[in-house]
């Protein structure tokens, strides 16, 4: 067991994958000589060379499409998109090709590509570097969408995604790269099919993922001090989502709060809430509440940025409301 950062966990997975499978290569903007915008691939160029740690021009659509093509001929590309907003330039490739080719060709081809991107707010990077498009990508049939929140998942889910025959999008919250966690020795394999109960509780289920997990765990701690036992679900995999774990938890607690950094309207939290209403309505003792991003382009100044995203006090307030103490 050792304490490592989330960034180191991603780097560890990259190194392991490159070492164990010669079909694996990493490409993206500044992944090589620069070491990665978030330094996840620092040192890998020297170890694996320019072919496999491939710096690309600024052409998100071009190199994401190239990853799809390389996957079609048997490679296992990892495409790093520097930040979530830039991935919009590659949407044509991700949706019209990666997510579509298998079904449209009658099952003749698979696209085993892994696309990693940093996501989320909190670094004062303003409105073109700070959004949360997890819900948007999770809308797309044909994609698998992962949101690792811990060092174990940051490493393990990347390796599991490489083993998966279908296109996988991994969201790494920018606020997590410096966070630390315990990595068991040997590092464990993880699945990319189930949600995880991050904290057990009996009064309310707090449903979250990625960058919001720690704030939600903090909220559960504060709730415990107030005599409310909150269960925290770390969804981990946003598509296909492990609904049975969600419903099983609500069956125990009868109350749910969804915490997501994305905008509330039409978004990820809306879908989770709708599914609970459709399939777990009779288990509920109170209406579902959502703590989500305020519907503005994320602003630069710290006080406004922080006011735009879910914070621990709001999660506590929402939980108290659903247990009838708000």
């Amino acid at each position, binding site marked *: 067991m050792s304490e490592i950062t989330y960034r180191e966990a991603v780097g560890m997975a990259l190194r392991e994958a490159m070492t164990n499978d010669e*079909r694996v*290569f990493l490409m993206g903007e500044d992944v090589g000589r620069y070491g990665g915008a978030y330094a996840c691939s620092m040192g890998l160029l020297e170890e694996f060379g320019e*072919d*496999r740690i491939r710096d*690309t*021009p600024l*052409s998100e*659509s*071009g*190199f*994401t*499409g*190239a*990853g*799809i*093509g*390389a*996957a*079609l*001929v*048997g*490679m296992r*590309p990892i495409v790093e998109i520097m930040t979530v907003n830039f991935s919009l330039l590659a949407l*044509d*490739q991700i949706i*019209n*090709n990666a997510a579509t*080719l*298998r*079904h*449209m*060709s*009658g*099952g*003749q*081809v*698979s696209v085993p590509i892994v696309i990693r991107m940093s996501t989320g707010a909190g670094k004062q990077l303003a409105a073109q570097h700070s959004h949360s498009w997890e819900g948007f990508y999770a809308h797309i*049939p*044909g994609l*698998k969408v992962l949101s690792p929140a811990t060092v174990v998942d940051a490493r393990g889910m990347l390796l599991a995604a490489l083993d998966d*025959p*279908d296109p996988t999008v991994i969201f790494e919250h920018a606020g997590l790269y410096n966070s630390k966690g315990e990595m068991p020795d040997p590092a464990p394999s993880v699945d990319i099919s189930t949600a995880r109960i991050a904290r057990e509780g009996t009064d309310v289920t707090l449903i979250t993922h990625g960058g919001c997990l720690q704030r939600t765990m903090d909220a559960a701690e504060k709730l415990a001090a107030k005599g409310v036992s909150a269960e925290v679900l770390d969804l981990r995999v946003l598509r296909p989502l492990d609904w049975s774990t969600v419903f099983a938890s609500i069956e125990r607690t009868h109350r749910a709060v969804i915490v997501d950094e994305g905008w509330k309207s039409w978004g990820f939290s809306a879908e989770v809430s709708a599914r609970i209403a459709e399939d777990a309505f009779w288990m509920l003792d109170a209406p579902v509440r959502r703590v989500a991003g305020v519907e503005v382009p994320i602003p630069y100044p710290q006080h406004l940025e922080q006011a735009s995203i879910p914070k621990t006090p709001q999660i506590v307030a929402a939980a108290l409301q659903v247990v009838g103490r708000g």
Partner: protein
Amino acid sequence: MTHPLPGRGHALHLLTQMLRIRRFEERSAELYSAGKIRGFLHLYIGEEAVATGALRALTDDDALLCTYREHGHALVRGVPMERVMAEMYGKQEGCSKGRGGSMHLFDDEQRLYGGNAIVAGHLPVAVGMGLGDKMMGRNRVTACFFGEGAMAEGEFHEAMNLAALWKLPVLFACENNGYAMGTALDRSESQTSLTVKAASYGMPAVAIDGMDVLAVEAETRRVVDAIRATSTPAFVEFRTYRFRAHSMFDAELYRDKDEVELWKKRDPIPAFLSRMVAARILEDGDFEHVDQKVMHELSEAVAFAEAGTWEPVEDLTKDVYTEVGT
């Protein structure tokens, strides 16, 4: 430029392939009017010499990506006509299981990867296939066909830049039929010399008379051989013309009938036939004989499509993801 005359067998082959396309397209138009084929239908009539000649430069190992005007390429590549026709019908015996229709013909066995209907969206994918092949040390060429309309898209630039920068074995094959749907070249491109534009990426770029099947074959072969020998990309422009409307919904308000008639005088099939007869390579009666065989193949293909079956609705969501265990 003059090209060596073909032997009789070779000439018969070229005539047969061009006629297979012509008759297939004519019948498709009828079947569309009869309601057997639905959706969009883009006919290749007038452009047959391009696919017929150019594909002879490829080996079975090479990959082929096309646009939504690709029936001809699929037929010449070796996808059985009956499977192409069944695909037009949407039957599960079609080459994409009926899922794609006219615009999305796939055949992994023949290394045909669409049938791509996002203009220029397949160019980055072709680059990636070339990249994967090169990284794995395979001596294969990826041939990517697109219309001149694609050259105004950003993905064209990104793909050309990546292929040239990384020295990838990709043939960029532009089928310049003068119109991006209804928009003439000089109304959509600031630089109307397509080879000048392509050459700016630092790759060889040549224009070829796309109405002359012998020129297409000989010059494409020269270019493809160079790609294979040097593992670097090249661009070719086939100057051609579609005699029919863009799709079945097109009233053709954007071009003069005189212009169409002028190009029809250069119809690649009679032009080739009369040249071969004059050179005594083909003789009177050859055309009728070939046509008879083609019409027989076509009626078998239509019968096959008619007898085809619909994919069960229960299979609707199959192959969105790879099935576990496959």
